Protein backbone atom coordinates (compact mmCIF):
# COMPACT_ATOMS: atom_id res chain seq x y z
CA UNK A 1 0.00 0.00 0.00
CA UNK A 2 2.95 2.29 0.63
CA UNK A 3 4.05 3.99 -2.53
CA UNK A 4 4.88 7.50 -3.58
CA UNK A 5 1.69 7.83 -5.60
CA UNK A 6 -0.17 8.16 -2.34
CA UNK A 7 -0.11 11.66 -0.90
CA UNK A 8 -1.80 10.76 2.36
CA UNK A 9 -1.73 7.37 4.04
CA UNK A 10 -3.71 6.38 7.08
CA UNK A 11 -2.41 3.22 8.71
CA UNK A 12 -4.26 1.22 11.32
CA UNK A 13 -5.70 4.28 13.02
CA UNK A 14 -7.83 4.04 16.14
CA UNK A 15 -9.56 7.12 17.47
CA UNK A 16 -11.80 7.60 20.49
CA UNK A 17 -14.02 10.55 21.19
CA UNK A 18 -14.56 10.27 24.92
CA UNK A 19 -15.46 6.61 25.35
CA UNK A 20 -16.98 6.25 21.90
CA UNK A 21 -14.81 4.51 19.36
CA UNK A 22 -14.87 6.50 16.11
CA UNK A 23 -12.21 4.62 14.15
CA UNK A 24 -11.05 1.09 14.73
CA UNK A 25 -8.10 0.04 12.62
CA UNK A 26 -8.73 2.44 9.77
CA UNK A 27 -6.56 1.90 6.71
CA UNK A 28 -6.80 4.09 3.65
CA UNK A 29 -4.52 5.84 1.17
CA UNK A 30 -5.34 8.89 -0.90
CA UNK A 31 -3.67 9.08 -4.32
CA UNK A 32 -1.69 12.16 -5.31
CA UNK A 33 -3.21 14.67 -7.69
CA UNK A 34 -6.70 13.13 -7.56
CA UNK A 35 -9.98 14.16 -6.03
CA UNK A 36 -11.14 11.66 -3.46
CA UNK A 37 -14.54 12.11 -1.85
CA UNK A 38 -14.83 10.75 1.68
CA UNK A 39 -18.45 9.80 2.19
CA UNK A 40 -20.53 8.08 4.78
CA UNK A 41 -23.47 8.47 7.13
CA UNK A 42 -23.53 11.48 9.46
CA UNK A 43 -21.55 11.05 12.64
CA UNK A 44 -19.09 8.49 11.28
CA UNK A 45 -16.17 10.85 11.78
CA UNK A 46 -15.44 12.09 8.27
CA UNK A 47 -14.49 15.51 9.55
CA UNK A 48 -12.48 13.82 12.29
CA UNK A 49 -10.46 12.09 9.58
CA UNK A 50 -9.67 15.43 7.90
CA UNK A 51 -8.66 16.90 11.24
CA UNK A 52 -6.34 13.99 11.89
CA UNK A 53 -4.69 14.53 8.51
CA UNK A 54 -4.35 18.22 9.35
CA UNK A 55 -2.86 17.34 12.73
CA UNK A 56 -5.59 19.11 14.70
CA UNK A 57 -6.59 15.81 16.27
CA UNK A 58 -4.20 13.03 17.16
CA UNK A 59 -4.98 9.38 16.56
CA UNK A 60 -4.99 7.23 19.68
CA UNK A 61 -2.95 4.63 17.81
CA UNK A 62 -1.69 4.11 14.28
CA UNK A 63 -0.07 6.51 11.84
CA UNK A 64 -1.25 9.32 9.60
CA UNK A 65 1.37 10.00 6.94
CA UNK A 66 1.38 13.08 4.75
CA UNK A 67 4.12 12.94 2.12
CA UNK A 68 5.62 10.10 4.13
CA UNK A 69 5.98 12.02 7.38
CA UNK A 70 3.91 11.14 10.43
CA UNK A 71 1.64 14.03 11.36
CA UNK A 72 0.88 12.62 14.81
CA UNK A 73 4.45 12.54 16.10
CA UNK A 74 5.73 15.66 14.39
CA UNK A 75 6.95 18.57 16.52
CA UNK A 76 4.66 21.57 16.82
CA UNK A 77 7.03 23.66 14.71
CA UNK A 78 7.25 21.07 11.91
CA UNK A 79 3.48 20.66 11.92
CA UNK A 80 2.93 24.40 11.46
CA UNK A 81 5.59 24.45 8.74
CA UNK A 82 3.79 21.59 6.95
CA UNK A 83 0.41 23.34 7.19
CA UNK A 84 1.88 26.61 6.02
CA UNK A 85 3.51 25.27 2.85
CA UNK A 86 1.73 22.08 1.92
CA UNK A 87 -1.86 22.07 3.14
CA UNK A 88 -5.01 24.04 2.72
CA UNK A 89 -8.35 23.38 4.31
CA UNK A 90 -11.78 24.74 3.62
CA UNK A 91 -13.96 24.58 6.72
CA UNK A 92 -17.67 23.93 6.88
CA UNK A 93 -18.34 27.40 8.25
CA UNK A 94 -15.45 28.81 6.18
CA UNK A 95 -13.67 30.43 9.13
CA UNK A 96 -13.27 33.81 7.45
CA UNK A 97 -12.02 36.53 9.79
CA UNK A 98 -15.06 38.67 10.39
CA UNK A 99 -13.01 41.76 11.25
CA UNK A 100 -11.15 41.73 7.92
CA UNK A 101 -12.53 42.40 4.45
CA UNK A 102 -12.30 39.94 1.57
CA UNK A 103 -8.97 41.28 0.35
CA UNK A 104 -7.33 41.20 3.77
CA UNK A 105 -8.69 37.74 4.46
CA UNK A 106 -6.99 36.35 1.37
CA UNK A 107 -3.87 38.41 2.05
CA UNK A 108 -3.63 37.15 5.65
CA UNK A 109 -1.52 34.03 5.01
CA UNK A 110 0.71 35.90 2.53
CA UNK A 111 1.32 38.81 4.89
CA UNK A 112 1.94 36.48 7.81
CA UNK A 113 4.25 34.03 6.13
CA UNK A 114 6.09 36.00 3.48
CA UNK A 115 8.09 39.21 3.30
CA UNK A 116 6.72 40.07 -0.13
CA UNK A 117 6.25 43.77 -0.88
CA UNK A 118 2.71 45.14 -0.71
CA UNK A 119 2.22 45.54 -4.47
CA UNK A 120 3.19 41.92 -5.06
CA UNK A 121 0.81 40.72 -2.35
CA UNK A 122 -1.88 42.83 -3.99
CA UNK A 123 -1.26 41.12 -7.34
CA UNK A 124 -1.29 37.66 -5.78
CA UNK A 125 -4.50 38.31 -3.87
CA UNK A 126 -6.22 39.68 -6.96
CA UNK A 127 -5.14 36.62 -8.93
CA UNK A 128 -6.61 34.29 -6.31
CA UNK A 129 -9.81 36.32 -6.14
CA UNK A 130 -10.07 36.37 -9.93
CA UNK A 131 -9.80 32.56 -9.91
CA UNK A 132 -12.90 32.33 -7.71
CA UNK A 133 -14.65 35.16 -9.56
CA UNK A 134 -14.72 37.61 -6.67
CA UNK A 135 -12.13 40.21 -7.64
CA UNK A 136 -14.93 42.78 -7.61
CA UNK A 137 -15.92 41.92 -4.04
CA UNK A 138 -12.54 42.65 -2.51
CA UNK A 139 -13.75 45.50 -0.28
CA UNK A 140 -16.75 43.69 1.17
CA UNK A 141 -16.77 42.20 4.67
CA UNK A 142 -17.75 38.56 5.28
CA UNK A 143 -21.09 39.64 6.78
CA UNK A 144 -22.00 41.25 3.44
CA UNK A 145 -21.44 38.08 1.40
CA UNK A 146 -23.82 35.28 0.49
CA UNK A 147 -23.11 31.73 1.67
CA UNK A 148 -21.66 30.71 -1.66
CA UNK A 149 -19.43 33.79 -1.87
CA UNK A 150 -18.13 33.20 1.67
CA UNK A 151 -17.07 29.74 0.65
CA UNK A 152 -15.37 31.00 -2.51
CA UNK A 153 -13.41 33.60 -0.53
CA UNK A 154 -12.38 30.92 1.94
CA UNK A 155 -11.29 28.79 -1.01
CA UNK A 156 -9.20 31.67 -2.40
CA UNK A 157 -7.62 32.09 1.02
CA UNK A 158 -6.81 28.40 1.41
CA UNK A 159 -4.99 28.33 -1.94
CA UNK A 160 -3.14 31.59 -1.26
CA UNK A 161 0.05 29.79 -0.28
CA UNK A 162 -0.24 27.32 -3.20
CA UNK A 163 -0.71 24.11 -1.20
CA UNK A 164 -0.19 20.61 -2.61
CA UNK A 165 -3.04 19.11 -0.62
CA UNK A 166 -6.40 20.69 -0.06
CA UNK A 167 -9.18 19.39 2.14
CA UNK A 168 -12.79 20.43 1.80
CA UNK A 169 -15.14 19.87 4.73
CA UNK A 170 -18.74 19.68 3.50
CA UNK A 171 -18.26 22.28 0.75
CA UNK A 172 -21.78 21.88 -0.69
CA UNK A 173 -23.88 22.11 2.47
CA UNK A 174 -26.51 24.81 2.41
CA UNK A 175 -25.76 26.19 -1.05
CA UNK A 176 -28.24 27.05 -3.78
CA UNK A 177 -27.84 25.14 -7.06
CA UNK A 178 -25.95 27.96 -8.78
CA UNK A 179 -23.43 28.41 -5.97
CA UNK A 180 -23.12 24.64 -5.77
CA UNK A 181 -22.31 24.52 -9.47
CA UNK A 182 -19.66 27.20 -9.01
CA UNK A 183 -17.99 25.37 -6.13
CA UNK A 184 -18.04 22.11 -8.07
CA UNK A 185 -16.40 23.80 -11.03
CA UNK A 186 -13.80 25.44 -8.81
CA UNK A 187 -12.85 22.21 -7.04
CA UNK A 188 -12.50 20.38 -10.33
CA UNK A 189 -10.74 23.31 -12.00
CA UNK A 190 -8.22 23.80 -9.21
CA UNK A 191 -7.48 20.14 -9.21
CA UNK A 192 -6.79 20.09 -12.92
CA UNK A 193 -4.93 23.39 -13.18
CA UNK A 194 -2.71 23.00 -10.14
CA UNK A 195 -2.54 19.20 -9.80
CA UNK A 196 -3.72 19.45 -6.20
CA UNK A 197 -4.53 16.39 -4.20
CA UNK A 198 -8.07 17.09 -3.06
CA UNK A 199 -9.92 15.39 -0.22
CA UNK A 200 -13.57 16.14 -0.05
CA UNK A 201 -15.90 15.28 2.80
CA UNK A 202 -19.50 15.26 1.74
CA UNK A 203 -22.70 13.31 1.76
CA UNK A 204 -24.03 14.76 -1.45
CA UNK A 205 -23.67 11.61 -3.52
CA UNK A 206 -24.58 13.04 -6.89
CA UNK A 207 -22.33 16.10 -6.68
CA UNK A 208 -19.41 14.15 -5.31
CA UNK A 209 -19.69 11.51 -8.03
CA UNK A 210 -19.60 14.24 -10.68
CA UNK A 211 -16.18 15.50 -9.74
CA UNK A 212 -14.46 12.82 -7.68
CA UNK A 213 -11.94 10.43 -9.19
CA UNK A 214 -12.38 8.10 -6.23
CA UNK A 215 -14.94 7.59 -3.53
CA UNK A 216 -14.03 6.41 -0.07
CA UNK A 217 -17.06 5.21 1.87
CA UNK A 218 -16.63 5.16 5.64
CA UNK A 219 -19.04 3.51 8.02
CA UNK A 220 -18.76 2.04 11.50
CA UNK A 221 -15.14 3.12 11.94
CA UNK A 222 -13.85 1.42 8.82
CA UNK A 223 -13.58 1.98 5.09
CA UNK A 224 -16.29 -0.17 3.54
CA UNK A 225 -15.64 0.82 -0.04
CA UNK A 226 -12.90 2.55 -2.03
CA UNK A 227 -12.90 2.93 -5.79
CA UNK A 228 -14.20 4.96 -8.71
CA UNK A 229 -17.88 5.88 -8.53
CA UNK A 230 -18.77 3.33 -11.22
CA UNK A 231 -16.87 0.52 -9.55
CA UNK A 232 -18.67 1.10 -6.27
CA UNK A 233 -22.13 1.47 -7.83
CA UNK A 234 -21.72 -1.87 -9.54
CA UNK A 235 -19.86 -3.52 -6.68
CA UNK A 236 -21.20 -6.27 -4.47
CA UNK A 237 -21.15 -4.44 -1.12
CA UNK A 238 -24.81 -3.97 -0.19
CA UNK A 239 -24.13 -1.23 2.36
CA UNK A 240 -22.13 0.83 -0.14
CA UNK A 241 -24.92 0.49 -2.69
CA UNK A 242 -27.53 1.42 -0.10
CA UNK A 243 -25.58 4.57 0.67
CA UNK A 244 -24.99 5.55 -2.95
CA UNK A 245 -28.62 4.95 -3.90
CA UNK A 246 -29.99 6.52 -0.73
CA UNK A 247 -32.25 3.57 0.16
CA UNK A 248 -34.01 4.18 3.49
CA UNK A 249 -33.70 0.59 4.63
CA UNK A 250 -31.10 -2.09 4.06
CA UNK A 251 -27.92 -3.18 5.82
CA UNK A 252 -28.12 0.15 7.70
CA UNK A 253 -31.53 -0.34 9.34
CA UNK A 254 -34.27 2.29 9.36
CA UNK A 255 -35.05 1.48 13.00
CA UNK A 256 -32.72 2.32 15.84
CA UNK A 257 -32.18 -0.92 17.80
CA UNK A 258 -35.16 -1.43 20.16
CA UNK A 259 -37.11 -4.13 22.00
CA UNK A 260 -39.82 -6.06 20.23
CA UNK A 261 -42.51 -3.61 19.06
CA UNK A 262 -45.52 -5.62 20.31
CA UNK A 263 -43.96 -6.35 23.68
CA UNK A 264 -43.07 -2.69 24.04
CA UNK A 265 -46.62 -1.51 23.35
CA UNK A 266 -48.17 -4.01 25.76
CA UNK A 267 -45.63 -3.20 28.46
CA UNK A 268 -47.38 0.14 28.98
CA UNK A 269 -50.57 -1.58 30.11
CA UNK A 270 -49.03 -3.60 32.92
Amino acid at each position, binding site marked *: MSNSNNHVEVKDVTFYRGKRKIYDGLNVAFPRGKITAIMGPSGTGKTTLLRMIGGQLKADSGEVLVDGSNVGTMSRGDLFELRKNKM*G*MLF*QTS*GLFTDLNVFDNVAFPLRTHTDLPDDMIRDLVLMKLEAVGLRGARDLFPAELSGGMVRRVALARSIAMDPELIMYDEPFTGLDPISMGMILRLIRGLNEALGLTSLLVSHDVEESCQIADYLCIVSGGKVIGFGTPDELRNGDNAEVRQFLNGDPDGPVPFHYPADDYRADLFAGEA
Partner: protein
Amino acid sequence: MLKHVRSLGQVGVQSIQSIGRAGMLFTQSVTWGGPGSAGFLDLIRQIHSVGVRSLSIIIVAGFFVGMVLALQGYNILVKFGSVSALGTMVSLTLLRELGPVLAALLFAGRAGSALTAEIGLMKATEQLSAMEMMGVDPLKRVITPRLWAGVISVPILALLFSTVGIWGGAFVAVDMLGLYDGAYWSNMANTVEFYEDVVQGLIKAAVFGVVVTWIAVYQGYDAAPTSEGIGKATTQTVVISSLAILGLDFILTAVMLGGV
Protein backbone atom coordinates in the same frame (compact mmCIF):
# COMPACT_ATOMS: atom_id res chain seq x y z
CA MET B 1 -25.55 8.31 47.68
CA LEU B 2 -22.65 6.77 45.77
CA LYS B 3 -23.81 8.72 42.74
CA HIS B 4 -23.39 12.00 44.57
CA VAL B 5 -19.92 11.06 45.78
CA ARG B 6 -19.02 10.12 42.24
CA SER B 7 -20.30 13.37 40.77
CA LEU B 8 -18.42 15.29 43.46
CA GLY B 9 -15.26 13.45 42.44
CA GLN B 10 -15.97 14.24 38.81
CA VAL B 11 -16.26 17.96 39.57
CA GLY B 12 -12.92 17.74 41.34
CA VAL B 13 -11.23 15.98 38.45
CA GLN B 14 -12.73 18.39 35.94
CA SER B 15 -11.60 21.46 37.83
CA ILE B 16 -8.06 20.12 38.16
CA GLN B 17 -8.01 19.33 34.42
CA SER B 18 -9.30 22.80 33.73
CA ILE B 19 -6.58 24.40 35.85
CA GLY B 20 -4.03 22.28 33.99
CA ARG B 21 -5.32 23.43 30.59
CA ALA B 22 -5.32 27.04 31.77
CA GLY B 23 -1.73 26.65 32.92
CA MET B 24 -0.69 25.22 29.56
CA LEU B 25 -2.45 28.01 27.73
CA PHE B 26 -0.63 30.57 29.87
CA THR B 27 2.85 29.11 29.43
CA GLN B 28 2.35 28.70 25.69
CA SER B 29 0.94 32.15 25.07
CA VAL B 30 2.87 34.34 27.50
CA THR B 31 5.96 34.53 25.28
CA TRP B 32 6.10 36.22 21.90
CA GLY B 33 7.34 34.55 18.73
CA GLY B 34 6.33 31.32 17.03
CA PRO B 35 4.44 30.39 13.88
CA GLY B 36 2.71 33.49 12.54
CA SER B 37 3.28 35.37 15.78
CA ALA B 38 1.51 38.65 16.44
CA GLY B 39 3.41 41.89 16.05
CA PHE B 40 3.71 45.16 17.94
CA LEU B 41 0.77 46.61 16.00
CA ASP B 42 -1.51 43.81 17.21
CA LEU B 43 -0.56 44.67 20.79
CA ILE B 44 -1.37 48.34 20.25
CA ARG B 45 -4.70 47.41 18.66
CA GLN B 46 -5.60 45.20 21.62
CA ILE B 47 -4.56 47.83 24.17
CA HIS B 48 -6.91 50.14 22.34
CA SER B 49 -9.73 47.63 22.40
CA VAL B 50 -9.46 46.49 26.04
CA GLY B 51 -7.78 49.50 27.66
CA VAL B 52 -8.72 52.68 25.88
CA ARG B 53 -12.32 51.60 25.42
CA SER B 54 -12.61 50.95 29.17
CA LEU B 55 -11.58 54.53 29.95
CA SER B 56 -15.07 56.01 30.12
CA ILE B 57 -16.42 53.52 32.64
CA ILE B 58 -13.22 53.74 34.74
CA ILE B 59 -13.25 57.55 34.85
CA VAL B 60 -16.93 57.93 35.64
CA ALA B 61 -16.83 55.18 38.27
CA GLY B 62 -13.64 56.58 39.80
CA PHE B 63 -15.14 60.05 40.13
CA PHE B 64 -18.25 58.78 41.90
CA VAL B 65 -16.34 56.46 44.20
CA GLY B 66 -14.08 59.35 45.21
CA MET B 67 -17.10 61.56 45.89
CA VAL B 68 -18.79 58.94 48.05
CA LEU B 69 -15.58 58.27 49.97
CA ALA B 70 -15.20 61.96 50.77
CA LEU B 71 -18.82 62.26 51.83
CA GLN B 72 -18.73 59.20 54.11
CA GLY B 73 -15.26 60.02 55.38
CA TYR B 74 -16.22 63.58 56.22
CA ASN B 75 -19.18 62.45 58.29
CA ILE B 76 -17.06 59.97 60.23
CA LEU B 77 -14.05 62.20 60.72
CA VAL B 78 -16.08 65.22 61.73
CA LYS B 79 -17.14 63.32 64.89
CA PHE B 80 -13.50 63.08 65.93
CA GLY B 81 -12.74 66.59 64.85
CA SER B 82 -10.18 65.42 62.33
CA VAL B 83 -11.65 66.38 58.96
CA SER B 84 -8.23 67.63 57.91
CA ALA B 85 -7.24 63.97 57.51
CA LEU B 86 -9.91 63.53 54.83
CA GLY B 87 -7.47 63.96 51.92
CA THR B 88 -5.19 61.32 53.38
CA MET B 89 -8.05 58.93 53.94
CA VAL B 90 -9.48 59.29 50.46
CA SER B 91 -6.16 59.01 48.68
CA LEU B 92 -4.83 56.07 50.67
CA THR B 93 -8.07 54.12 50.35
CA LEU B 94 -8.06 54.66 46.62
CA LEU B 95 -4.37 54.11 45.93
CA ARG B 96 -3.95 51.07 48.14
CA GLU B 97 -7.29 49.37 47.82
CA LEU B 98 -10.22 50.64 45.84
CA GLY B 99 -8.31 51.83 42.76
CA PRO B 100 -6.77 48.46 41.89
CA VAL B 101 -9.73 46.37 43.08
CA LEU B 102 -12.56 48.34 41.52
CA ALA B 103 -10.66 49.05 38.30
CA ALA B 104 -9.96 45.33 37.96
CA LEU B 105 -13.59 44.41 38.71
CA LEU B 106 -14.85 46.90 36.14
CA PHE B 107 -12.23 45.71 33.67
CA ALA B 108 -13.42 42.12 34.14
CA GLY B 109 -17.00 43.15 33.42
CA ARG B 110 -16.24 45.48 30.56
CA ALA B 111 -13.21 43.99 28.78
CA GLY B 112 -12.86 40.48 30.22
CA SER B 113 -16.31 39.36 29.18
CA ALA B 114 -15.80 40.90 25.73
CA LEU B 115 -12.50 39.04 25.32
CA THR B 116 -14.14 35.76 26.26
CA ALA B 117 -17.03 36.28 23.87
CA GLU B 118 -14.74 37.36 21.04
CA ILE B 119 -12.38 34.39 21.36
CA GLY B 120 -15.27 31.98 21.95
CA LEU B 121 -16.99 33.17 18.78
CA MET B 122 -13.75 32.95 16.80
CA LYS B 123 -13.58 29.35 17.95
CA ALA B 124 -17.23 28.60 17.19
CA THR B 125 -16.96 30.04 13.67
CA GLU B 126 -13.81 27.98 13.03
CA GLN B 127 -11.64 31.09 12.67
CA LEU B 128 -9.12 29.64 15.11
CA SER B 129 -9.07 26.27 13.32
CA ALA B 130 -8.70 28.00 9.97
CA MET B 131 -5.79 29.99 11.34
CA GLU B 132 -4.16 26.82 12.60
CA MET B 133 -4.52 25.18 9.19
CA MET B 134 -2.87 28.21 7.58
CA GLY B 135 0.17 27.51 9.72
CA VAL B 136 -0.56 30.31 12.16
CA ASP B 137 -0.61 29.42 15.85
CA PRO B 138 -3.77 31.00 17.31
CA LEU B 139 -2.18 31.02 20.75
CA LYS B 140 0.57 33.29 19.49
CA ARG B 141 -1.52 35.30 17.10
CA VAL B 142 -4.73 35.79 19.07
CA ILE B 143 -4.06 35.04 22.73
CA THR B 144 -0.60 36.55 23.31
CA PRO B 145 -1.39 40.16 22.31
CA ARG B 146 -4.68 40.09 24.25
CA LEU B 147 -3.04 38.71 27.36
CA TRP B 148 -0.34 41.38 27.32
CA ALA B 149 -2.79 44.14 26.49
CA GLY B 150 -4.71 43.30 29.67
CA VAL B 151 -1.57 43.10 31.77
CA ILE B 152 -0.43 46.52 30.53
CA SER B 153 -3.85 48.19 30.69
CA VAL B 154 -5.10 47.31 34.18
CA PRO B 155 -2.35 49.10 36.19
CA ILE B 156 -2.79 52.23 34.06
CA LEU B 157 -6.57 52.09 34.48
CA ALA B 158 -6.18 51.59 38.24
CA LEU B 159 -3.91 54.63 38.48
CA LEU B 160 -6.41 56.70 36.50
CA PHE B 161 -9.23 55.46 38.69
CA SER B 162 -7.40 56.58 41.83
CA THR B 163 -6.42 59.94 40.34
CA VAL B 164 -9.94 60.77 39.23
CA GLY B 165 -11.27 59.48 42.56
CA ILE B 166 -9.00 61.85 44.46
CA TRP B 167 -10.30 64.73 42.34
CA GLY B 168 -13.86 63.56 42.99
CA GLY B 169 -13.10 63.56 46.70
CA ALA B 170 -11.68 67.07 46.45
CA PHE B 171 -14.77 68.21 44.60
CA VAL B 172 -17.05 67.03 47.41
CA ALA B 173 -14.79 67.96 50.32
CA VAL B 174 -13.54 71.31 49.16
CA ASP B 175 -16.21 72.62 46.80
CA MET B 176 -19.32 71.21 48.42
CA LEU B 177 -18.52 70.69 52.11
CA GLY B 178 -16.23 73.71 52.37
CA LEU B 179 -13.11 71.96 53.64
CA TYR B 180 -10.00 74.15 53.34
CA ASP B 181 -8.30 72.91 50.16
CA GLY B 182 -4.84 73.27 51.65
CA ALA B 183 -5.76 70.76 54.35
CA TYR B 184 -7.04 68.28 51.77
CA TRP B 185 -4.02 68.42 49.50
CA SER B 186 -1.11 69.10 51.82
CA ASN B 187 -2.00 66.38 54.33
CA MET B 188 -2.25 64.03 51.39
CA ALA B 189 1.12 65.12 50.08
CA ASN B 190 2.72 64.65 53.49
CA THR B 191 1.40 61.17 54.20
CA VAL B 192 1.21 59.31 50.90
CA GLU B 193 4.44 57.40 50.24
CA PHE B 194 5.43 56.69 46.67
CA TYR B 195 6.74 53.18 47.21
CA GLU B 196 4.48 51.97 50.02
CA ASP B 197 1.23 53.30 48.63
CA VAL B 198 1.45 54.07 44.94
CA VAL B 199 3.80 51.31 43.82
CA GLN B 200 2.22 48.63 45.98
CA GLY B 201 -1.20 49.56 44.56
CA LEU B 202 0.26 49.25 41.08
CA ILE B 203 1.70 45.83 41.89
CA LYS B 204 -1.75 44.72 42.99
CA ALA B 205 -3.27 46.07 39.80
CA ALA B 206 -0.66 44.28 37.69
CA VAL B 207 -1.41 40.98 39.42
CA PHE B 208 -5.15 41.51 38.92
CA GLY B 209 -4.49 42.38 35.27
CA VAL B 210 -2.65 39.10 34.66
CA VAL B 211 -5.29 37.04 36.45
CA VAL B 212 -8.38 38.66 34.91
CA THR B 213 -7.03 38.58 31.36
CA TRP B 214 -5.77 35.04 31.79
CA ILE B 215 -9.18 33.88 33.01
CA ALA B 216 -10.93 35.74 30.18
CA VAL B 217 -8.79 34.36 27.33
CA TYR B 218 -8.83 30.87 28.82
CA GLN B 219 -12.62 30.85 29.19
CA GLY B 220 -12.98 31.96 25.57
CA TYR B 221 -10.44 29.51 24.22
CA ASP B 222 -11.88 26.62 26.21
CA ALA B 223 -15.56 27.49 25.63
CA ALA B 224 -17.88 24.94 24.08
CA PRO B 225 -18.32 26.25 20.52
CA THR B 226 -22.06 26.84 20.82
CA SER B 227 -24.10 29.91 21.73
CA GLU B 228 -24.89 28.35 25.09
CA GLY B 229 -21.23 27.54 25.71
CA ILE B 230 -20.11 31.07 24.93
CA GLY B 231 -22.80 32.55 27.18
CA LYS B 232 -21.70 30.30 30.00
CA ALA B 233 -18.04 31.11 29.47
CA THR B 234 -18.73 34.85 29.53
CA THR B 235 -20.57 34.54 32.83
CA GLN B 236 -17.80 32.35 34.22
CA THR B 237 -15.21 34.97 33.31
CA VAL B 238 -16.97 37.66 35.31
CA VAL B 239 -17.74 35.40 38.29
CA ILE B 240 -14.35 33.71 38.55
CA SER B 241 -12.34 36.88 37.97
CA SER B 242 -14.35 38.85 40.53
CA LEU B 243 -13.78 36.18 43.16
CA ALA B 244 -10.13 35.86 42.20
CA ILE B 245 -9.61 39.62 42.49
CA LEU B 246 -11.19 39.81 45.94
CA GLY B 247 -9.39 36.72 47.21
CA LEU B 248 -6.02 37.77 45.85
CA ASP B 249 -6.55 41.27 47.21
CA PHE B 250 -6.65 39.93 50.73
CA ILE B 251 -3.53 37.82 50.22
CA LEU B 252 -1.59 40.67 48.60
CA THR B 253 -2.66 43.16 51.25
CA ALA B 254 -1.58 40.77 54.00
CA VAL B 255 1.80 40.24 52.34
CA MET B 256 2.37 43.95 51.71
CA LEU B 257 1.33 45.16 55.14
CA GLY B 258 3.14 42.24 56.71
CA GLY B 259 0.69 42.31 59.59
CA VAL B 260 -0.85 38.86 59.36
